[in-house]
């Protein structure tokens, strides 16, 4: 009786396995494609972030340029360029030079 049932179900099981495999393959392919789009999107985002980082690097270089710092020091902090003799160079051994 059991053998008869097995014999009757076997073709259906085989067909079922084949169909499931086909669905599996199709699903995997769709998944690969979906992930491909995700990777593409992320790689574009990464590039945008890199460009942004670069933009900020340039901005940092611009705002820390010596000329600008000097202008800010003179205009905002009212500092002046030292005259001759106003700079005192110190050494480790208690020696000081006016420059």
């Amino acid at each position: 009786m059991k053998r008869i049932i097995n014999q009757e179900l076997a073709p259906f099981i085989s067909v079922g396995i084949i169909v499931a495999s086909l669905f599996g393959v199709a699903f995997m392919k769709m998944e690969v494609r979906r992930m491909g789009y995700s990777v593409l999107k992320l790689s574009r985002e990464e590039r945008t972030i890199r460009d942004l980082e670069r933009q900020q690097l340039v901005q940092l270089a611009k705002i820390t340029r010596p000329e600008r710092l000097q202008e800010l020091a003179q205009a905002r902090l009212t500092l002046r360029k030292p005259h001759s003799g106003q700079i005192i160079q110190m050494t480790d051994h208690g020696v000081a030079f006016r420059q």
Partner: protein
Amino acid sequence: MRARLVLILIGLTVLWGLLLTRAAFLQLIPNERLRALERRQFETVVTLNPRRGDILDRNGNELAVSMTTYSLFADPKIVKHPKKVARILARELRKPVKQIEEKLRQRNKRFVWIERQLNKETRDAIADRKIRGLGFIEESKRIYPNERLLSHVLGFVGGEGQGLEGIELHYNDQLQADSKRLNVRRDARGRPLIVNGQIFNQVPDGNEISLTIDRELQFIVEQELAEVVRNYQADSAVAVVLDAQTSEILAMAASPSFDPNNPLSYSPDRRRNRPVTDTFEPGSTMKAILVAGALSRGLIEPNTKFDCEGGRLKIGRRVIRESDSRHRFGVLTVNEILARSSNVCSAKIAFKLGAKNLLETLQEFGFGDKLGVDFPGEAKGILQPQPWDNNVVASVAIGHGMTATPLQIANAYAAIANGGWLKRPYLVKAIRDRETGEVIEMEPKVLRRVLTEEQAAKMRIMLTSVTSDFGTGKNARVPGYPVAGKTGTAQKVNPNGRGYLPGGYISSFAGFLPANDPKFVIYVAVDHPRKAYYGSAVAAPVFSRIARFAVRRVGLPPVLITQEHVLPKTQKSEVVRSAASARASADFDPIHSDSVVPDLSGLTLREVMSRVTGTDIRIRVRGQGFVSRTSPPPGARLSKNKVLTVYLER
């Protein structure tokens, strides 16, 4: 009936068979035409534009960088309402509507540039409008963040990103990279189908170039030049700072300068890197080379005496005089000849050396030929072909009748400074391949030996006397450091005719310091100063100011120390006394909010701040001076608000 059914079956079978055969033929047998059709339908080409390599200074500061920009184009045939679109674009681009509308109305064209090199914000603002017929192309833009700083050395690039002048031109092959084209499959909407997204980010960058230039020193040099040009109403000024031992170019400047971000607004004359491309009669700075030549041939010693004829020497119909008519020198030693810059005695040394040896000496020191510096447009300078009569010999002895570049003069002095080796000056310290990370370091290159160690030492001592009390170069002194050098005051050649320009001089000073163990060679020349003209008055003070900054910049310990420079011992507070030891033992690892508070006693506020930079710890400051205690105390953990209070005491 059955026969008909059989016939239909056979017919269908044959048809199916034909279809299957055709399908098998298409699928299994290679066919170039079909493959090309497939490629056209399912593949797309993605072009990755290269980014030009950066140029950095010796400390890694950016001098020239490239960044992505977006250029806006239009297909006028597709743009539906040119006037409306022009109005929208004009608002975003801040340009006249009419100008944009004219471009959009060119219906006979399929491609017109609307605006190039836009930033991302503007691009996004326009792209969000989704206007049909507009598109963007990514382009690389060259930016010089320091604007005018080092502009003559860096040069600039053209509209297509190719180097046109300076380092940008000389190292164009290194800085530029080829664009990369990738064939990738695409879907029905034209989107690339990719397995590895990284390929889109592997932009083929150009190599990164590190210069020998020190940005801070360069800034000071440029400032000093601008100031001397302004103060003396001069036409221009140049300066070169070399590493005395290697001939690395630490600073090289000319004033007036230009902004390489907008180079075409300036005349080509202003964009020239004069220290390399311009030659002029150097004047008395060449007397040091003359003396070095005579010394190296054993013809003179520092104490050899010459009669300076009371400041007047007749050569044929020409009379050689001292630069100052009040100078009526008698007998002077070679040492004094240099210190007082006697023209008459220099001519006599030249006669003793002879025309042939004088020419050879100049050639040995690198004059009359290119040094081979890594910069385009290097000038050779002019040395007249021999034979030379006594007039020419006397002229060349005092730095006239020949021309040289500022770089040649500085490099010749570097040979005296470094013990007698003439080295090739260079601007590029290292080249880094951005893709592989491989770094090629440039090494100093010896051209030849021009003096023995002993002769170079004698020259250094003699040149130090120039900045002594009786020398012409007193204004070039730097407190704490012996300075060796030579002033120069050359008549300026008349650019509009023969002879010299009346009242036109080039004031210069070439020297190095510390004279006993030179670290810096500095050459300064000021073209046609109108308020004074002696090198000692115009160029020597500039030399001194640049040199003072240079020694402070590298923390060079002073050599000339007297009792007045020694600080009196004072009673220091406990806090101050412990500061040195605390600093010496300070572990400069950053403090983290989750770690315990370390002992910060004795540190300055700056040192404390440097340890919390980049963390989320907030610092509260009480008092001034050095850290005496903290709250929370050392060993305790920070509270939830992550505030560290530091109490300072003097």
